[in-house]
């Protein structure tokens, strides 16, 4: 099978599964397995509002326009759903990132949340802060960690693409007694997140985020489509391995 054919099969299957599951789920309620990070995230947002402290979201190297565009969009969607809860507070959440193209997306995510709550007077465009990317994103990590600490953020939510620089953010969170919920789509970042974070989101669990927080039917349909594709891939790997062995 050529790459083009694989892409077409994946897209058509995902499209059919998403639409099919969306229709099916109108009649059958979806029961989701527990992902602790998605239990903790709304609670962290509620804590931040009650204590009038900020919550810090970091997108790391996730960027629009190239490889990680869709993971950036999903991260922004998760941030939006949490920012909706935070937008009742005067303390605007902080979003840090190091891809300049993502800056308007981050600002707009916050703006939409405040507009939804009709509290635009609390919205600050500068609550989304860009830091330049160094050779290992350490300049970003140093800047984001110190800004989060200086603004007394009660917790750090790292969603997107982080490498080893995640250790720096994690260390700073520990020193300043901040909660750390972390995800990375890079293996180095994922390993560090496992060791340092209070709660960790593994690999594709980030993409399940919209289905766990104020879900729409299409979000749940999308999650079911991912599960179907996962089983198809597992089946494909097993068949190929058996074929090679026999």
């Amino acid at each position, binding site marked *: 099978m050529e790459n083009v054919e694989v892409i077409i099969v994946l897209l058509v299957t995902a499209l059919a599964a998403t639409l099919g599951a969306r229709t099916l789920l109108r009649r059958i309620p979806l029961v989701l397995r527990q992902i602790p990070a998605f239990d903790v995230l709304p609670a962290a947002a509620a804590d931040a509002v009650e204590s009038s402290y900020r919550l810090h979201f970091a997108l790391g190297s996730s960027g629009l326009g190239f490889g990680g565009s869709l993971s950036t969009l999903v991260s922004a969607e998760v941030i939006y759903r949490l920012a909706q809860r935070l937008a009742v507070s005067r303390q605007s959440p902080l979003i840090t990132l190091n891809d300049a193209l993502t800056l308007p997306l981050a600002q707009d995510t916050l703006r939409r949340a405040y507009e939804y709550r009709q509290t635009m007077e609390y919205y600050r465009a500068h609550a989304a*802060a860009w830091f330049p990317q160094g050779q290992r994103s350490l300049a970003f990590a140093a800047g984001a960690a110190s800004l989060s600490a200086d603004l007394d953020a009660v917790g750090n939510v790292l969603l997107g693409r982080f490498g*080893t620089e995640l250790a720096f953010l994690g260390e700073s969170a520990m020193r300043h007694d901040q909660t750390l919920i972390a995800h990375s789509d890079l293996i180095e970042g994922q390993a560090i997140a496992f060791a340092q974070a209070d709660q960790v989101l593994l690999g594709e669990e980030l993409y399940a985020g919209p289905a766990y927080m104020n879900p729409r039917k299409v979000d749940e349909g999308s999650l079911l489509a991912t599960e179907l594709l996962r089983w198809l891939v597992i089946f494909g790997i097993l068949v190929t391995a058996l074929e090679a062995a026999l």
Partner: protein
Amino acid sequence: MRSHRLVNFLATVTVISIGLVMIIGLLSDQDTVPGIMAAFLLSLVTVIAAVAVVVGVLNLIAVHLGRFTRAERGWPYSIVVLVVAIGVIVLRILDRADIWTGDLEGERISARLFEAVQVSIESALAALLLFFLAFAAFRLMRRQVTVWNVLFSVTVVVVLLGSDPLNLLSDTRDWLVEVPVNAGTRGLLIGVGLGTVTAGVRVLLGQDRSYRD
């Protein structure tokens, strides 16, 4: 309200159209019309990304100027950031204007400054990461002893011992890196890839809200 709906409708139509053009273009040969259109759209992104860096720098300056004027905690660091940012921009302009004379003629001071300061500081920070990681493994075990935490800590110890000059456990380390780590990386990448496909489908269905009011 009506104008909002119209803007949302136009945004959705634009996103779906461009998404479809990109998919068809990337699946076609480069010299076909869809291939050329996809390449054109990608080059537009590159240009916008370059302009966005200027927006990013302005944002950085605005954020730190705000912290300085409001005297927020850590404001002295903001002054350092502002002075360095302006200094680097001025140096770069002087470099481009070839203003240096004497021993400095033909030099690119901004590039040299970057190498001397940025690379050194980042290397020093990178060296600290090892200690952060070792301490994180220790904290992990102190917090809760589970099978996965033990496995993680043992792996860290084996990899660290396997990397020493005495070649202790180097075979075990190589096997760990080549088999379980490789398998884990592929599993992670496949999972992220599948998530990306379904997220892409959501965008193509016009269900993504990031570009709508």
